[in-house]
């Protein structure tokens, strides 16, 4: 038998093995270890919660619709909910690193760790907590999602056509009865290459494509849907804040995918009516004017 054929090595067993033969939870979690870990955990949890609450709105753009704000809220809530669990994992890892019994990096540790092969209480509570978290996340997600499925009886129809590599919009002739009883009339169909939406008017986008799949993503409306050739994809929202943003293509669509964007704006409904009344001649683009553009 060759000398480096060293199967059957006996490593030193854990020093206080007799205490650990039938370990209860309180013995596995030695008090000083628990305290150290708890400090790290608390610190990280607070950090995570604060980041979730205060960083998210800074990181994400201002949203022009309830759907958009729901996205921000979701990130906020999920970060806060996940923070304690993520912090616990980090805390144990960091504590294990700091409190490593073995300082020499060159040789194998002289003493093995305690042979903890699992603990029903720890595993069980981990399972219960993570299941409860998932149930909460699911409940939150489904509630938010369901609240976005409200179909307004009357909505401004906007036909969105994606093609390589431009979005075009057409407003068919229609009369929309607004929630307050007022009406909004598009007397004659209007084609446009920018997207202009009246504020507080429910909008229904009918999204389709002439060629390949595009991703219709009016960024700050918090909705998104693919433009599939031969299919009509319906998206609904009600923009409730004035402002400008971009419609970007979110699905790679070939050569000029990067340039497939549209300037879009939410404008007062009087401005919208005035613009639409010019009919097709009103292709003079509102958004371009708002931005002090080139025309």
């Amino acid at each position, binding site marked *: *038998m060759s000398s*480096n054929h*060293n*199967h*059957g*090595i*006996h*490593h030193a067993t854990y020093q206080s093995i007799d205490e650990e033969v039938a370990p209860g939870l309180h013995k*596995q979690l030695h008090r000083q270890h628990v305290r150290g870990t708890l400090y790290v955990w608390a610190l990280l949890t607070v950090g995570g919660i604060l980041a979730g609450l205060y960083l998210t709105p800074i*990181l*994400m*753009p201002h949203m022009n619709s309830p*759907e*958009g704000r*729901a996205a921000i809220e979701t*990130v906020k809530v*999920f*970060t806060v909910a996940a923070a304690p669990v*993520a912090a616990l994992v980090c805390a144990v*890892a960091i504590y*294990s690193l700091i409190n*490593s*019994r073995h300082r020499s*990096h060159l040789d194998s*540790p002289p*003493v*093995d*760790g*305690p*042979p*903890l*092969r*699992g*603990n029903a209480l*720890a*595993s069980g509570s981990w399972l219960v907590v*993570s299941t409860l978290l*998932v149930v909460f*996340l*699911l409940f939150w997600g*489904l509630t*938010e999602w369901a609240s976005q499925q409200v179909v307004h009886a009357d909505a401004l129809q906007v036909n969105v056509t994606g093609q390589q590599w431009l979005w075009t919009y057409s407003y068919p002739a229609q009369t929309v009865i607004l929630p307050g009883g007022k009406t909004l009339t598009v007397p004659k169909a209007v084609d446009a290459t920018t997207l202009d939406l009246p504020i507080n008017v429910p909008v229904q986008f009918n999204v389709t494509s002439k060629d*390949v*799949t595009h*991703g219709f*993503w009016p960024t700050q409306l918090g909705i*998104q*849907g*693919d433009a*599939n050739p*031969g*299919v009509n*994809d319906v998206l609904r929202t009600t923009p409730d804040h004035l402002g400008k943003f*971009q419609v970007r293509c*979110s*699905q790679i*669509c*070939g*050569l000029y*995918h990067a340039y497939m964007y549209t300037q879009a704006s939410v404008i007062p409904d009087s401005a919208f009516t005035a613009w639409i009344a010019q009919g097709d001649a009103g292709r003079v683009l509102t958004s371009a004017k708002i931005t002090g553009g080139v025309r």
Partner: protein
Amino acid sequence: MTTTQERRLEDTVLGSAAGRFYRHQNFGTGLLGGVGLGFLLWLLGEYTVNNNPNYGTDMVVTLTMLGWVIGFNLGVGTFNAVLHWILGHDQTKEDELYAAGVGQGKSRYWKYCTDHKVVGTQYLILVFVLFFIGGTLAMMIRTQLLTPNSSFLSPQTYNAIVSIHGMTMIIATIIMVSGPFANFIMPIMIGAKDMAFPRLNAMSIWVIVSAVPPLMATFFVGGVNAGWTTYAPLSVQDGPAMVCFAFTIITFVVSVTVAGINTLITVLTMRAPGMTFSRMPVFVWASVIGGALGLYAMPAFLLDMTMMVSDHATGTSFFVSAQGGSGWLWENVFWIMGHPEVYVILIPPVGALMEVFSTFSRKPMFAYKMIIGAMIGIAGLSIMVWAHHMFTTGWAPDLAGPFMLTTELISIPTGIIFLCAIGTMWRGSNWVRLPMYFGFLFIWNFIVGGVTGIYLSDVPADDYFHGNMFVTAHFHYTLLGGAMIAATAGLCYWFPKVTGRMLDEKTGRAAFWLIAIGFQVTYLAQFYEGFKGMPRRVANYDPIFAPENVVSSIGAYVLMAGWIVLLYALVSSWRSGSIAPANPWSAKSLEWQTLTPVPLENFLEDVTVVNDAYGYGERAELQVHAVFGSTSDAHHGEGH
């Protein structure tokens, strides 16, 4: 093993029909065969089918690629055994020994070699090559994105690079652990003498090798425009590059299927006595689960890609809506493959990492049964979550709820992986060597990847984040920061066993810090881009995204520098590192109990397993994983 015995073997081999052609087949003859047959079929195509304006070029490219793949495998020797079997000329013992590489020195690494350790090493080299190609492409992407309206690459070249970066990395990560380590280490871990089907094993590597050139050929026939997901109908609209791309995948599917079957049968039928399922190391379980999941996922990939070739070369219309097709068919079938595939990538590295945690914390695996259950649970759930990639496609919006449910459920078994990792570390005698460094990095990265994954699983949030850089950052955190870092931990762990040399730890740690810091900078910046609303896969962008793109690019350069330093450490240690002892980590699993370098058929004596491989800190009788020799106590403790 330069013994009389070996010399005797060499004599036997060389004394038999050594001059036969198939003994001389190697990578070179493979190239010759592939190029030759490819050229022949190209000529044939040019003079027969290249008259259709719509499909002619695609038909020619299809024929050429077919010629390359078949020719290469003919040349390298993939079909030898089948042909011999059909002819009724079974290989002699000498032939089989020759095929296992006996007495051929380093040249066996260039051959159709049936020794699982040679195949594992070949896989390792291939993975390095693929990562280097993919990494170079990534650097070009980041260079293009340094400035908003960069003119470093044309939009067409940019799209081509994005697509091939993606697919190269996907292929490389699928095989990065199941290739090298499930082939080299896993059979030793279960006390087997080889894989169940050594010739299929060799086939799996050489078929993948033949799949790589078509992928790179896409650059020369117009490039793939459609990203690695190659969504139809854009990919139908693409030029013949898409045919090359599809051929890569079809070939790759053959390899993964064969390798998956091989892994499963090996573990099912070739375990050493006493190696019960409950004593199997976690890495073995992970390989089995990864292989089984691959077996489920790959047929879907095959279906999608054959349909794609058919649309290109024969004018069928599976994905062309004007003639009744649908891009949704592509998307569904693609993600039926695609989501399980993510876990085909992830599970084996996680298994490897668990071995690292247990060995370097000097503690038994915490909650062993739970982690096996968790991996099986992840695999089971992963086949029911595919449509979360399609929340915004307009396909079946009513199914958003159920798919949100299954997707979020997957975080429960994923959480158990964390529990087992920290449970194993808790109060351990943590021995912080290089594999452990990467282990800690994995924990942090995978937390970030996991939490951001929860945002994406939620439909209202996904309506903002889908298709933007947030998704890019998320899956790089899970697949690069998670799976690939875990695989790196595994590589540093098994490096002494595979190469017989110790890995230079100082250079390795320098690489680690570059990788760790570069990675965070790169992808945290990309998260910020995503929050702000920058779409994915764009060659140019709004200047409002400029600062974070500069940061991300600089991070990416640091990250790449880190990988290159690590590669340097690996290569220089492999060439001239200090000789590794058989068991440098004092680990208990079987691969460390045999010689380094590992002899042909792995063990010099019969192996009997008596306990699991995690008896750290246990009573003496529980510390023994296996005994060697015909009687269980005869060699117990020998060698001390």
